[in-house]
């Protein structure tokens, strides 16, 4: 691996790194002290200037860093928005649920009220209650009824043998 390559790799890894910073780091690695053996045939590694493309690359790597900032903000704000809307939604559901329970309770209460009133009506409408109420109001059971039947010629006849109702109170056992 060449030093140039190292430099580039380093630059890629640490986004804000520049070439001069990497230079001292590479120097010890290429130091001849590393190998003490007699083999000196291999040409020594030398520091070379960065290729022409380096500045552009550096610029290229720096530019996305600047452009990523809005992205991060977007993501963070999305997360925050999601969390907030979830909270709001849950709150709304809880409120709805609470209201539904309250409405249901109110509904049940009204249904019970209706039931109670209907019960009163039913109780008051039984024949025994009606008879008692009628007697209390001074009414008496009617006897045989008479029917006035009109003939085709306009004459009328009384059918049946109507009996006058007893005087109220005169015959309490009547009926």
């Amino acid at each position: 691996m060449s030093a140039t390559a190292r430099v580039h790799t380093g630059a890629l890894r640490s986004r804000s790194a520049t070439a001069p910073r990497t230079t001292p780091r590479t120097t010890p690695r290429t130091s001849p002290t590393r190998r003490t053996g007699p083999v000196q045939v291999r040409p020594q590694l030398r520091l070379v200037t960065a290729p022409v493309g380096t500045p552009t690359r550096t610029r290229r790597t720096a530019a996305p860093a600047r452009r990523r900032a809005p992205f991060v903000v977007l993501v963070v704000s999305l997360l925050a928005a999601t969390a907030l809307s979830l909270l709001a939604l849950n709150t709304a559901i809880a409120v709805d649920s609470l209201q539904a329970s309250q409405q249901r309770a109110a509904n049940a209460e009204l249904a019970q009220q209706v039931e109670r009133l209907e019960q009163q009506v039913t109780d008051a409408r039984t024949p025994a209650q009606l008879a008692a109420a009628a007697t209390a109001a001074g009414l008496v059971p009617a006897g045989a009824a008479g029917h006035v039947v009109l003939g085709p010629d306009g004459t009328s006849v009384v059918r049946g043998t109507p009996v006058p109702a007893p005087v109220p109170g005169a015959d309490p056992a009547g009926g």
Partner: protein
Amino acid sequence: MSTRSNDPSRRPARSGDRRPGTAGRDVLRPRREPGTRRARGLTPTVRARRNRFGLIAMVTLLVAVVVKLVVLQGIDGSAYAQAAEDDRMRVFDISAIRGEIVDRDGNRLAYSVEASRVVADPTIVPDPERTALALTTLLDVPAGELTEQLSGEGRYVVLAEQVDTATTDAISELALDGISFQDDPVRLYPAGVVGGQIVGFVGRDGDGLAGIEQRYEDVLAGTDGERRVEVGAGGLPIPSGIDASTPAVDGGSVQLTIDEDLQYTVQQRLDVECANGLTTRGSAVVQEVATGEIVAMATCPGYDPAQARNTDPELLGNPAVSDVFEPGSVMKAVTLAAAIEEGHATPDTVLSVPGHIQAGDRVVTDAHDHAPIDWTVTGILAKSSNVGTIMLAREVGDQRLEEYLRAFGIGSTTGIELPGESAGILQDSADWTQSRAANIPIGQGVSVTALQMASVYQTIANGGVRIEPRLVSSVTAADGTVTTEPRPEGTRVVSESTADQLAYMLEAVVGPGGTAPLGEVDGFRVAGKTGTAQRANPECGCYDGGGYFTTFVGFAPADAPRYVIAVDLERPTSSAEGGQVAAPVFADLMQYALTSSDVVPSGTARPEFQLTGTAPTN
């Protein structure tokens, strides 16, 4: 890795290698051999063994974890999930509301309302005495009793049942710990005794035990539902948690053919009879002639279905359909119908009727023994002559007579929609002894229900077509679908002319010279027949001292029959006849029934009847 290179155990070992004598030579030597900088200082075999050991340990652990995971998730998973769910789910029963029983106009005879069972968990109740004091007036239970219950063992005690909603609301407001409510609907019978025997009653668990309540249990009961709620630690529902309800399906309602007002009048009139000290039991059945529908049916003493638990079980039946009695002379109409239909007689046929007649080993007499009288068949019926009826029955023959009796419905159930109906008792004619053959035509030795008797006269009033009595007009399911109960097909029992002749003769009974002038109804023509049958004395199994069943069965208006009414009164200590006792009850009921139905009298006069004649001398 770094920990390994810093392992202090290696450095002393290395320095220990440097012997003091060779120290000078070691100065220029690197500490380590080149290329061994990263060496672990272990031989490859040891390293491999360690690796293998590590691998096995890791794999074993992983396998254990995976196995446990599979066991938890795969095999026991559903059980654990269920247990977890059960822990936070609470199931509340939703009781179905039992259907209503209404009369023909929709008036409620039986219905259910929501109510609650008040229950307590004594382990949660903080102060039994204080809680008991708070509840005692609301529940109407003595405080001492409540305190005892609230301090008891267990986690479930029932403090009160069928508590109305107003009371439970009041208790809820007290916010007492450990007190809760369960659905416990209450069955109400607003009319009480009126129609009680027909409607029946329900048991403690709400199942119908008598009458329509029992017969229509499937329709009325409905299906209970439940509410499954996810609850938090305090037992309160979690707002956004599971809240799944299976709604209860309420019961359907049953509409009867009963007219509540008429039913009330019938019950009132019978109660008057039962209160006179002589009548121990009295039944009345009011049937509509044209449809066979039962408009009223009652027996005194009756019972209030709401009080069924506290009522003598002997009274909890419907005697009008379940109790049989010997009808006596009212049965003579069937004998005469057979004689006329078979061509052996007409209303004007004259017979020389003696005062008594030999029947096997015994002698049957008329009510009062007399010298032979030349009665017309009308006269025989109007005077209720036993001897004349037996003479006609002998012409018909036992077998034919039995056929007619069965065709009129004697000896078989009517199929009315009530439990416990009796078929009555009618022996096969082949088994009739001579005395029985003489008794059956006059209504002794044969047993009927009041309902069967009404049905016989409905047949005559309806021109000879018998329509089985029915009590239920329609059933309405919980979803509102109405099912009209099919009306039974009429069956012709006798010809229309026979029925008309019988109706004519039956009018004579109420007319001058008949046995039941008290059966007359002001303004209307009435046809009917009295009956006075000996009642078997339950103490000796004989007729001696058993008293009488007095009956009157009839219909009106005779010229266009609207209602049939059968009245029978059991009078064990009286010898009064049906014409004196049962006929007035009939007249009062018929009067009310016709007047309340706005039946206009036809205005035609009752025909003249020929009760006696000149018997052909042959």
